[in-house]
């Protein structure tokens, strides 16, 4: 197994994530797409760490930070979703259009 394989998986995962974030109508779906992109990045970091600098763990530590930030992001994001949902009774992103020009 070479680095290329892992990177290919990560790239696929990332693109799927983008697609999800761009196309899901449901806000929670968008959040999930973003989570996928985070994971793709994590795979990248861990893979580079493993193959290019096998004796260091810096890449993995950055992955850890990303996981933590992602956790925080999800918590706040979901709280926001709930708050908005309580106000306008919908979780479809296209209905959130107060900024329409």
């Amino acid at each position, binding site marked *: *197994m*070479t*680095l*290329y*394989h*892992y*990177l*290919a*998986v990560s*790239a696929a*995962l*990332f*693109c*799927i*994530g*983008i*697609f*999800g974030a*761009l*196309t*899901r*109508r*449901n806000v*929670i*779906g968008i959040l*999930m797409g973003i*989570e*996928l992109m985070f*994971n793709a990045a*994590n*795979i990248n970091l*861990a*893979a580079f*760490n*493993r*193959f290019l600098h*096998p004796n260091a763990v*810096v890449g*993995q*530590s950055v*992955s*850890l*930070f990303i*996981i*933590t*930030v*992602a*956790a*925080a*992001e*999800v*918590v*706040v994001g*979901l*709280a926001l*979703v*709930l*708050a908005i*949902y309580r106000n306008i009774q919908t*979780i479809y992103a296209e209905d959130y259009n107060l900024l329409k020009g």
Partner: protein
Amino acid sequence: MEQFAFYVFAGVTLLAALGVVLLRNVLHAALMLGLCLLGVAGIFAQLGADFLFASQILIYVGGIAVLILFVVLLAGRASELITRQTNKLWPPAAFVCGVTFVFLLRYYRSFNGTSASSAPKPTTFALGKLLLGDLALPFELISLILLAALAGAIVFSRTEHDEEERKA
């Protein structure tokens, strides 16, 4: 064996991810997300990142995915199952994703043939030293961010009704 495991994990991950973005039922999508995250955890294990593997399962699968499930259950409605869950942006989005994927693959091609020079070692000890040594400050800061997120989430999710109750 190793190759087999890799393909399994990779396959699970990617299929589950497709499920996440394509399934109509958000509840199913959320479950798929959990599966996908598990797959990623497997890939971590393949990469010899034992601590990352553990955190992935604990935080992502155990925490985030479950959290998303809860919210889906809280905010979801039965009627939504029949409505379309993908908006009309999908053709350009698909185009963008394709372009990006092609580009990334071509870019990564130079790493084709780079293989691990040694067997993986346990990393937990080294990570611990790093996080409490050189990276102590970011580590502390990230915990602050978590705290802030926690507080923020509480503030956001509290209703005015709650406040009135508290005052009374």
